[in-house]
């Protein structure tokens, strides 16, 4: 009795991570919980109330009409969606302002999640090859950093990168700025948006945005990759070594294939997370390169105050997230069928 009880949570944990990539997470769970139908119905109703109703409301509002002064009317119009994709003046003129915001949302989410997972993988792998005690210490540090809110993290980076008191000041005072100018790399830095004519300047910039976004989700990436990586049998790695594989080859040919699904799963989860990142983008991205998360907030609560249009943007953003998840599930299934 005790053996299955011990292993069951671990199996479920695998399925949880792998589930994002479309593996059959449901089959790994015990089917019988033994709740009476009435309790099940109550839980279902509660879930419906908490999850489905707000979502349905957003969809309904997105089809409504805005009334100046923060109100809206019931309606059944696609005007808000039209405005999103082609602009309010269509067909006379086309505006892709919001399509661009959508593009930046996806842009940061893809790069941020891939970068975070790519950087978290070697780190998590190295942790899992340490002693039990060292592993625990590392995980405690990581969990502590996850408990820092995005606001706190971004504030730290904001100061670090600020022009007057952060790294640019350090560059200037230490003569590094002058050195960079003398070396002739300044034009390149300006092309990358990392300098103005006189000084290096890290924000707003796309690199700072990506850095901050990656930094925010990186601990999550480590924590998502830690369980599957710690289950990779050390003997498998050693077997590969006795067969002539160097450490890097072992990682490429044994470790990565063994955690392929969790890698995809972690990337997708963080992708969805980054789509909704607000503070880091608002601080580090130039206004022309900001995301839907910001403009949705502006529409619902902020400066533009147009609830139906905000709702439409939210629905589009959600659909894109769903599309990515479905796509990866499909790719996962195809890969599994091929194998």
């Amino acid at each position, binding site marked *: 009795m005790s053996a299955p009880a011990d292993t069951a949570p671990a199996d479920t944990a695998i399925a949880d991570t792998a589930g994002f990539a479309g593996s059959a997470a449901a089959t790994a769970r015990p089917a019988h919980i033994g709740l009476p139908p009435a309790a099940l119905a109550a839980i279902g109703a509660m879930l419906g109330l908490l999850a489905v109703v707000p979502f349905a409301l957003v969809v309904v509002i997105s089809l409504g009409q805005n009334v100046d002064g923060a109100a809206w009317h019931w309606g059944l119009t696609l005007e808000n969606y039209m405005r999103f994709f082609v602009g309010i003046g269509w067909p006379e003129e086309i505006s892709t302002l919001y399509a661009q915001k959508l593009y930046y949302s996806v842009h940061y989410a893809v790069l941020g999640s891939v970068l975070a997972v790519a950087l978290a993988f070697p780190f998590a792998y190295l942790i899992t090859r340490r002693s039990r005690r060292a592993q625990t210490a590392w995980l405690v540090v990581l969990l502590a950093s996850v408990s820092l809110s995005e606001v706190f993290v971004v504030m730290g980076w904001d100061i670090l990168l600020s022009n007057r008191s952060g790294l640019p000041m350090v560059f200037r005072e230490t003569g590094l700025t002058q050195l960079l100018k003398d070396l002739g790399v300044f034009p390149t830095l300006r092309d990358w948006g990392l300098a103005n004519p006189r000084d290096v300047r890290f924000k707003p910039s796309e690199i700072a945005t990506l850095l901050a976004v990656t930094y925010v989700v990186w601990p999550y990436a480590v924590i998502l990759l830690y369980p599957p990586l710690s289950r990779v049998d050390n*003997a498998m790695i*050693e077997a*590969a070594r006795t*067969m002539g594989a160097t450490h890097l080859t072992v990682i490429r040919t044994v470790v990565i294939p*063994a955690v392929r699904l969790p890698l995809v799963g972690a990337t997708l989860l963080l992708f969805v997370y980054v789509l909704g990142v607000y503070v880091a983008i608002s601080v580090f991205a130039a206004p022309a390169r900001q995301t839907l998360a910001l403009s949705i907030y502006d529409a619902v609560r902020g400066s533009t105050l147009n609830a139906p249009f905000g709702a439409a943007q939210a629905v589009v953003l959600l659909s894109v997230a769903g599309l990515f998840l479905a796509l990866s599930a499909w790719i996962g299934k195809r890969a599994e069928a091929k194998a």
Partner: protein
Amino acid sequence: MAGLRLDDLGKDYGTVTAVDGVTLDLPDGGVTALLGPSGCGKTTLLRMIAGLEAPSRGRLLIDGQDITDMPAEARRFGMVFQSFALFPHLTVADNVAYALMIAGMPKAQRRTRAEELLSLVQLPGYGGRRIAQLSGGQRQRVAIARALAQEPLVFLLDEPMSALDAKLREEMQVELRLLQQRLGITTVVVTHDQREAMTMADRIVVMQSGRVEQVGTPQEIYHQPASAFVAGFIGKANMLDGRAAAGAIALEGGTLAPVTAAPFIDGAPVTVACRPERLSLAPAGADDRAPNRLTGQVAFVRDVGQVREIHVQIGPHALTAELPAADRTAYAIGDAVAVAFPADALHVYPAETAAKAA
């Protein structure tokens, strides 16, 4: 193919000594078993040979060349792991051909070679299967084929049978030994099972607490155990505590004299070991004063078919005698019997080592 030399090879973990300076020659083409109870350092020693564990001291030489600091991936030693450690994401053929893939052999050639190796381990046509579709015995064969793919200089096996059931284990021991004889490859096998060691190896290294207790052929180890520990660990042995007395051993209930006088000062505490099948029994009678005979009472009789075990109590000593099935003399509990100890079957050790082994 190559001979290995271990020169004072040792390993410490912090203050704990796992392997304490082992010096050994592993002859070219032979099978050496590292045998001992769990925690005796045999696996650590094997892992040092494989290059998976860095020795704290000593050297490892292959054909005279020092490879102590050579990484595992450069040694070309094939290893079969206790858990088999097959790659679940690869097919059977890709598992077998892994070393060849790493070495950059073209795909078509790899496939042919994998099929050859699978035939060698009697799994022809299994190349396309997934690892999950194989039984335990089949997985072991795949692990063996995979370790042999790179034509290793030395073949290492870490408890290779422990994941198999008893019947399959015996079959695989013989099969693996035959395969090794065919290939003539220098082999080291780690095991805690003395039957496995005696089946597979032509030389056994008995280890205890990180040290080598005895090195010898299975016959030597069994018939001339070098210590009370070896006598007790390999096969069954009756251990009797006594004191040295003019080259013989004084026990409660009589005196036993080995062939060669035991080199102990009179009065030193010693342990006498004797294999149960070397003892012979006779009903107590006139002969009782003859040398190397002790009398006692039958305490228990166990008849398991091919042998009969008669447990005899002689004063404080409980002994077991194994009689061949052909001997039909009836013994009942409480019978007075004389136990004869052949002088050449007696092994005398200092009492301290016996205490340590127990």
